C-alpha cells in the first residue's frame, strides 16, 4: 500500500488550487480577447479630446488615455493581439523545438552533442535580447514579433523536451519497438512523443505567459504591434509617458497582462503538480 502512501495530500490540494485559479484566469483572458473581437463600448480608436486622461467613471469604466480614447475598449480590442502573440510564439517555439528534441534525444551520440552545445549557446542569450536580434533582421510588426519570440523560445523547448525524450527513450517499450522493426520516425512520433506530452503541455502553458510579457515588451519598445492599433504592450508604452499626470490609462492593460501571465503560469504549475502526482502514483 506504499503507493497510496506516496500521495502527499497537501500537494494534491495545492495542485488543485493552482489549476482552478490558473484555468479561471486563463479562460478570463481568452474570453476578454474573444469578446474584444466582437464588441467594445466605444470604437477603440475614437478620439475624444474633451475627456483626455480621465479617471474611471460610469461612461469610461477604466478611464481614458491621452487622446481621450476609452481604455476599456482598447483593452478589449487589443486583447486578441496580445493573446495571439503568446500562443503563436509558443506554437512556433514548439514546432521548431520538438522535432530537434526528438531527433537528438533519440539518436544521442555526436549529433546530440553538437546540437545541444549549440542550443546551450543560444540559451545563454536572454530571450528578449534573442528576440530583438531576430526583429533586427525582420523589422517591426505583430507577425514579426510572433516569429521572433517563437524562435527565441525554441532552445528552451529543445532543452526541456530532450531530457523527457531521453528518459522515455530509455524505457523498454522503445527497445521493444526497435525489436519489432519500427522505423525511427514512428518510434519518435508514435512511441516517444505521446509519452512526453506532460512536460510539453506544462512548459507550453508557462511559455504562453512568458511570450505574452515578451510581446508586450516588444510592443512597448515599438517593435511589435504598430500604433494606432492597440495591444496591451502598446497601451502601456503610450500610457507610461503620462504617468505623472494620470496612472489610470496604465492600470487597465497592466492588470490584463498581469492576470493572464499569472493565469498561464498557475495553470502550468498546477498541471505540473498534477501530472507529477499521477506519475509518482504510477511508479510506486
Amino acid at each position, binding site marked *: 500500500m506504499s503507493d497510496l502512501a506516496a*500521495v502527499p495530500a497537501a500537494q494534491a490540494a495545492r495542485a488543485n488550487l493552482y489549476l482552478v485559479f490558473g484555468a479561471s484566469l486563463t479562460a478570463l483572458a481568452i474570453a476578454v480577447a474573444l469578446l474584444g473581437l466582437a464588441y467594445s463600448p466605444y470604437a477603440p480608436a475614437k478620439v475624444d479630446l474633451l475627456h483626455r486622461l480621465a479617471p474611471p467613471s460610469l461612461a469610461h469604466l477604466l478611464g481614458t488615455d491621452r487622446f481621450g480614447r476609452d481604455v476599456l475598449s482598447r483593452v478589449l480590442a487589443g486583447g486578441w493581439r496580445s493573446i495571439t502573440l503568446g500562443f503563436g510564439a509558443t506554437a512556433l517555439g514548439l514546432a521548431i523545438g520538438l522535432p530537434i528534441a526528438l531527433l537528438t534525444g533519440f539518436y544521442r551520440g*555526436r549529433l546530440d552533442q553538437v546540437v545541444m552545445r549549440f542550443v546551450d549557446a543560444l540559451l545563454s542569450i536572454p530571450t528578449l535580447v534573442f528576440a530583438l536580434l531576430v526583429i533586427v533582421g525582420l523589422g517591426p510588426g505583430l507577425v514579426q514579433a510572433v516569429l521572433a519570440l517563437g524562435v527565441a523560445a525554441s532552445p528552451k523547448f529543445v532543452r526541456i523536451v530532450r531530457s523527457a525524450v531521453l528518459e522515455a527513450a530509455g*524505457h523498454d517499450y522503445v*527497445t521493444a519497438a526497435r525489436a*519489432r522493426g519500427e522505423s525511427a520516425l514512428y518510434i519518435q512520433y508514435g512511441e516517444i512523443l*505521446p509519452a512526453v506530452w506532460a512536460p510539453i503541455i506544462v512548459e507550453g502553458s508557462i511559455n504562453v505567459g512568458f511570450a505574452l510579457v515578451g510581446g508586450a515588451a516588444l510592443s512597448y519598445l515599438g517593435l511589435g504591434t504598430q500604433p494606432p492599433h492597440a495591444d496591451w504592450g502598446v497601451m502601456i508604452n503610450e500610457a507610461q509617458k503620462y504617468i505623472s499626470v494620470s496612472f489610470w490609462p496604465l492600470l487597465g492593460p497592466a492588470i490584463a497582462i498581469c492576470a493572464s501571465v499569472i493565469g498561464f503560469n498557475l495553470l502550468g504549475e498546477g498541471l505540473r503538480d498534477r501530472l507529477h502526482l499521477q506519475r509518482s502514483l504510477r511508479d510506486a
Partner: protein
Amino acid sequence: MPDPLIEIRNLTVSFAVGGVLLPAVKELTLTLQPNEVVGLVGESGSGKSTALLAVMNYLPGNAVVETGSIVHDGVDLLRADRATLDRIRGRRIAMIYQDPTTALNPAMTVGAQIAEVLTRHLGMDGERARGRTHELLGLVQLDDPPRIAAAFAHQLSGGMQQRVMIAMALSGEPDVLLMDEPTTALDVIVQAHVLELVRSLHRQIRSSIVFVSHNLAAVAQLADRIGVLYAGELMELGPAAQVLDHPSNPYTRGLIAAVPRIATRRLPRGIPGTASREPLRFAHCVFLDRCAFAADLCRSSRPALVELGAGGHVSRCHFAAEPSRIGAGLSDLAERADLAERADLAERADLAERADLVERAEPAERAMSAAGEGADDAAPLLEVSGLSVEYRRGAGFLGLGRPHVVRAVREVSLRLPRRRVLAVVGESGSGKSTLARALLRLEPKTQGRIVFEGADVHALDAGHLRAYRRRAQIVFQNPTSSLNPRKRVADIVARPLVLHGVARDDRRRRVIATLRAVGLTEAYLGRFPEQLSGGEKQRVALARAFVTEPLLVVLDEPTTALDVSVQATILELLLEQKERTGCAYLLISHDLAVVRQVADQVMVMRDGEVCESGAAEQIFTRPAHPYTRELLAAVPDLPERPRPETPYNS
C-alpha cells in the same frame, strides 16, 4: 514468557484516497519477543510495509490509524511525542529499506554518513566515531573498512550498499531491526550473502528482527515465527516449522506452492487472480475470490483467527482446524481442471527430459548436423558462433577522448533448437542481457555470426530483416517500463500486426485470441497500463510478443520484478504458450530455481564469458564449474521437510 519488545495490538491503518478510507492493515495483533526473528510474508499491497512504517511511526500524511496501539518498552509509539520518538528511532528501533541506492546520500562518503549517526545521536567525538564506523563496517563483513568508509555510495555494489545500510542501522545498537524487503533488489548470490550476514548478526548481537518479504523461501531462511499477510489481514501466524510443515490456510498453502524449488523440476503453482484493492470491510473472507475451497460460510462471514494447538499457531480460516477441507475437496470443478493440467504439465516435463536424454545420447549426430549435413529435425533455430560485443565508453566530446573498451560479451557460441528453452544464467554485469539484445540485432556485434533459420542475421537485407523482426520477439523484466503508459492495451498488442500489414478485421480477431491465450479478456482492450497490476502488465507484454507468432522469444528476466505467486502463473503461461505456438525461448535469468523449472539447456555466464553449458539436468545435478556450484548454493529454498499434500503441489 518475557515481556515482548514490541506489542502491536489490534492495529488498523487506512489511507485517505480521494475522500475514501482504504484499509491497508486490518486489526493486526503481533508481538516481537526478545531475541526473536519474525518473518512477515505477503504479496505487494498486503500491508506488510505499512505495518513496519507504523512501528517506526513513519506513516505518510494521508494514513489514518483507526484503532490499535504499538507498545515498545511501555511507550505507545503511535501516540508518542516527537522527542520520545527521536530517542527511540534509530537508537532502540532501526529500519532497513529495500533499495539502498535511494536510502544512501550520494554526496557524502558512507563513512561520514555512519559517523554522523554516531556523533549526533550517541554524542561520540569525531575520532571515536571514526573508529566505531570501521568496527561496524567490519561487523557487516566488509573487507578493508577504511577504504569502504571513504567511498561514495555509487562506488559500491548493491550488496555492499545494503551492508552499509545494515551497519548504519546497527550504529545505535538497537534492540529491534525492521527489515523491509532487504534482499529483493539484489542478485541471488548477493541475496544469499546478505541473508547469511543477517543470520550471523542475529546470533552475534542478539537483537530482534522483523523481516518482511514477498518471498517465503527467503523468510524461511531466518524466521523463528512466520506471519502471513493478505490484503491487510493476518492470515496465519505461528512457529516457522509449523507454518511451513502444516500450513493451515489456503493462502499460505498457495504461497508455499508458488516457490520454485531448486531441487526438483516441478512447475510452481501460482495463486490465480490478483489481490483486491477495493475497500473491503470485513463482510466476508478477504481471500474469498482467489480461494479454491471457498464455501457459503466464507461468503457470509469473515473468519476470525482460529487457534491451532499450544504453540501460538493461528490461522484466519473457517476450516483451519480441518486441513482435509482445504486440501482435498475433489468434487470442486476448478480443482479437477487443475489436476488435469498438472498431469499434462508432468507429461510435458517428462517429454522434455526424455528429449534431453536423446540429445546426450547422440552427440555425434548433432555435431554432424551442426556442420551442415542436411536439414534434419535437429537443425537449430538459432546458432551463434564466436559472438563478441564491445562498448566504447568515456570517449568524451565527439569521441575525441581516449575510450576504454568494455567487452560485454566475449566469444559466446550457442545452439538453440526449435521448441526448446535455453536459459542463460548469470549475475548482473555478466553480459547476459547484452547477449540477448545482440541476438535481436539491437546491439552492434563486434565479431562472430548469428544464424537464424540458416541465414546470417547481420547479412539480412531490409525485407528479410523485417521477417526476422517478426519471428524473433523480446519480453522484458520490468513490465511497467515495457508498456507505453499513454497507449491502450488494444493498441499495444495490435501494433506489431499493423506494422506487418495485417488487415484490420483479422487484427482484432488475433489480438483478442492472443489476449485470451495469456489469460486476459476483451475487457482489457480499452485499459491503460497504469490500470493494470504488475502480473497483468506482463501478460500484455507477452501478448504483444506472441501476437506475431514468433519462432524465437527472448525472455529477459521475465518474472524477476513480480511477486512469487504471480511469477508462478507467468511461468505456467510461458510453457503453455510454447506448446501452443511451438516457439523456442532464450531465457535470461539470475534465478536458478526458476530456470530449473522451465529450461532444457543451461548456459552459465560470468564477466561476458561462458563458464559452463549443457543439458539442464546435468547442470543442476552435476555442475562442473565452481561458479555454477556457487550459484546453485545461493538460491534460497524452503527447508527440506516432508511437504503437506495439497492440490497445489500434489
